């Protein structure tokens, strides 16, 4: 952690704050972009504003002027407008028309900047990767305190975005979920679209010239996508996305200082590392999310297959018991019949013994009364399904076993009663085996 020994709140503190503000500001509208499946529009706008910056810059010759800001915002909005035009008139899908618009505008801006680069001080590289590290070079005195200009601008943008999202929460939500209904309610989905585009463009422009493109583009998409995996309500999704954005920014700066030193390098690009941290957080969440995470889904699947095996064991023992009452079956017999793993089967049979479904004897397991009831339910479900598939579905008798074998594990008392009704209460299943009574 020696890399952090040079940490200075006057320097690093401002950088982290600038990163947090940019990340939070971008993540707020990003939620709506994500839900409207137009996340890449944030990317497109962020790139397309380059010619706006360049034109305003060439005209005014200054980097921090209001005209430059407005010029870029207007071009950003034009991106959204052009994208829609091309989609409508060119008969191509949204992704393609977006691609056409923003690469063209971006290239135009690049050409203009390079042309102007001889006599002006605007570095295309700096615009792309950002220069968070120079945050404290440009300080403004506010009420006696020296504050970086970047922080002021980004704070203003964050407040604007927050106000828009809070004030128009209902309208943004409805027009994202059901634009047709929004429009018929008098909340023009088109109007909300452009309101969203305005704050996206303002955020992109403000971030572009201070923290660079990569950070804002990442924060439009990644924190909302992460929050989407974790939440079930829009309000909490927005809050969580802002938190994730802030955490990514903080972690990003710290790791930009620390991680390279592990490998003997000097610190790396801060805004790049912030974006990378957001990506890593997303990856972690997609693995570990409590509802939609990859791990929990694997666990659920395994638990289900354990339950099914456990039920299959009891049902098998019941069938053997049917042929020869009071039969004692060894674990090897059971395992061979079910083609299941030895360890898992023994574990599950021990579990059944603990629950009193079976009695463990020296030669194997024997059903108890409660185990017999359990087995009867499963076998009843199985045979009722077989009967149902044949009599109601017209499925061939030799094809029903596999189907019924799956369905029996998801069939409760109520469904069995209905099966019994629909199949007019048969005594034997299609194979001629008796259907146990309830």
């Amino acid at each position: 952690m020696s890399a952090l020994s040079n940490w200075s709140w006057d320097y690093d503190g401002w950088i982290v704050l600038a990163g947090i503000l940019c990340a939070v500001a971008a993540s707020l509208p990003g939620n709506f972009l994500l839900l409207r499946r137009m996340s890449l529009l944030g990317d497109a706008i962020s790139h397309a504003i380059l010619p706006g910056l360049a034109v305003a810059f060439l005209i005014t010759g200054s980097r921090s002027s209001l005209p430059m800001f407005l010029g870029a915002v207007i071009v950003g909005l034009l991106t959204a407008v052009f994208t829609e035009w091309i989609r409508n008139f060119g008969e191509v899908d949204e992704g393609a028309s977006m691609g056409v618009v923003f690469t063209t505008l971006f290239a135009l801006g690049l050409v203009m900047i390079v042309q102007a680069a001889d006599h002006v001080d605007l570095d295309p590289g700096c615009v792309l990767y950002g220069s968070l590290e120079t945050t404290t070079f440009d300080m403004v005195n506010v009420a006696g305190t020296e504050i970086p200009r970047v922080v002021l601008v980004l704070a203003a943008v964050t407040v604007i975005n927050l106000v828009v999202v809070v004030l128009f929460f209902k309208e943004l939500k409805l027009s994202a979920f059901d634009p047709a209904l929004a429009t018929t309610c008098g909340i023009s989905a088109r109007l909300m679209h452009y309101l969203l585009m305005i704050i996206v463009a303002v955020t992109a422009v403000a971030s572009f010239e201070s923290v660079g493109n990569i950070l804002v583009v990442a924060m439009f998409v990644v924190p909302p996508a992460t929050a989407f995996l974790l939440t079930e309500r829009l309000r909490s999704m927005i809050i969580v996305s802002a938190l994730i954005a802030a955490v990514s920014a903080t972690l990003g700066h710290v790791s930009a200082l620390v991680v390279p030193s592990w490998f003997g390098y000097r610190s790396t690009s801060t805004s790049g590392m912030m974006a990378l941290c957001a990506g890593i957080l997303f990856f972690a969440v997609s693995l570990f999310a409590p509802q939609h995470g990859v791990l929990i889904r694997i666990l659920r699947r395994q638990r289900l297959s354990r339950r099914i095996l456990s039920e299959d064991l009891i049902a098998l023992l019941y069938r053997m018991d049917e042929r020869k009452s009071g039969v004692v079956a060894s674990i090897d017999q059971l395992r061979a019949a079910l083609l299941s793993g030895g360890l898992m089967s023994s574990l599950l049979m021990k579990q059944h013994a603990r629950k009193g479904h079976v009695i463990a004897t020296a030669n194997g397991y024997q059903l108890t009364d409660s185990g017999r009831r359990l087995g009867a339910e499963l076998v009843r479900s199985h045979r009722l399904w077989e009967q149902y598939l044949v009599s109601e579905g017209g499925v061939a008798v030799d094809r029903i076993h596999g189907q019924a074998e799956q369905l029996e594990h998801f069939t409760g008392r109520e469904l069995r009663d209905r099966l019994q009704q629909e199949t007019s209460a048969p005594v034997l299943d299609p194979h001629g085996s008796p259907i146990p009574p309830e």
Partner: protein
Amino acid sequence: MSGSIAQPPNNTLPLSVRDLTVAWYRKPVIWDVGLDVTPGQLVGVIGPNGAGKSTFLKAIMDLVPRASGRIEIFGQSYKRSRHRVGYVPQRESVDWDFPVSVLDVVTMGLYGKIGWCMPVRRHHREAALRALERVGIGEFANRQISQLSGGQQQRTFLARALVQDADLYLMDEPFAAVDAATEKAIVQILREMKQAGKTTIVIHHDLHTVPEYFDSVVLLNMRVVASGPTETVFTRDNLEKTYGGRLTLLDEATEAMRRRERTL
């Protein structure tokens, strides 16, 4: 007739459509549609796939641009009578993974009334809950919508239409792929709405249930093939005209026009 009619009777019609044409790249989707709907009716719109049924509903609400035609709702333009029209879009038209609760979706029906930037209040949520209970899924109010079955989704949409408390309802296939219990519940609600004097226009696919459900029908295939009371209009002859012959010559002519445009 007596001369004491203050307004011409036409003005009180929930819906009056004249010469409506909607085109998509010059190709007419619906063509020269005219229709009058009298109050308190349950109207079924029937026609084959691609006949322009959804487009017809959307054109009524200005959701798609129309090439020509005049539409009056309760004697006024749609814009002025918007608050009297409730819309139930096709279930597939929205993303059911959207992070909102069932109650949220129903409350959306009130957003127009609540007004810009005003918060949703408790009595709005209570009204939404009552509507959910009326369609029989009150217990799902706090679920996320992704957990609903198809029938429950459709009931949610119906509840949302109910809280809108409109006078004219336009429903796009509310019976599509729902279970039998839901279908029964929806029919029940539609009848109650009719009793309350509401007018409802429903796009419908299942020809068997048409005579049972609807007072009058509109047979649509680009143009209105026939419309009127179900018992006189819903005939084999008219159905054959609706489902058999499209205006194939018109199709060919517009296709030729498009080809011409492309080659020039």
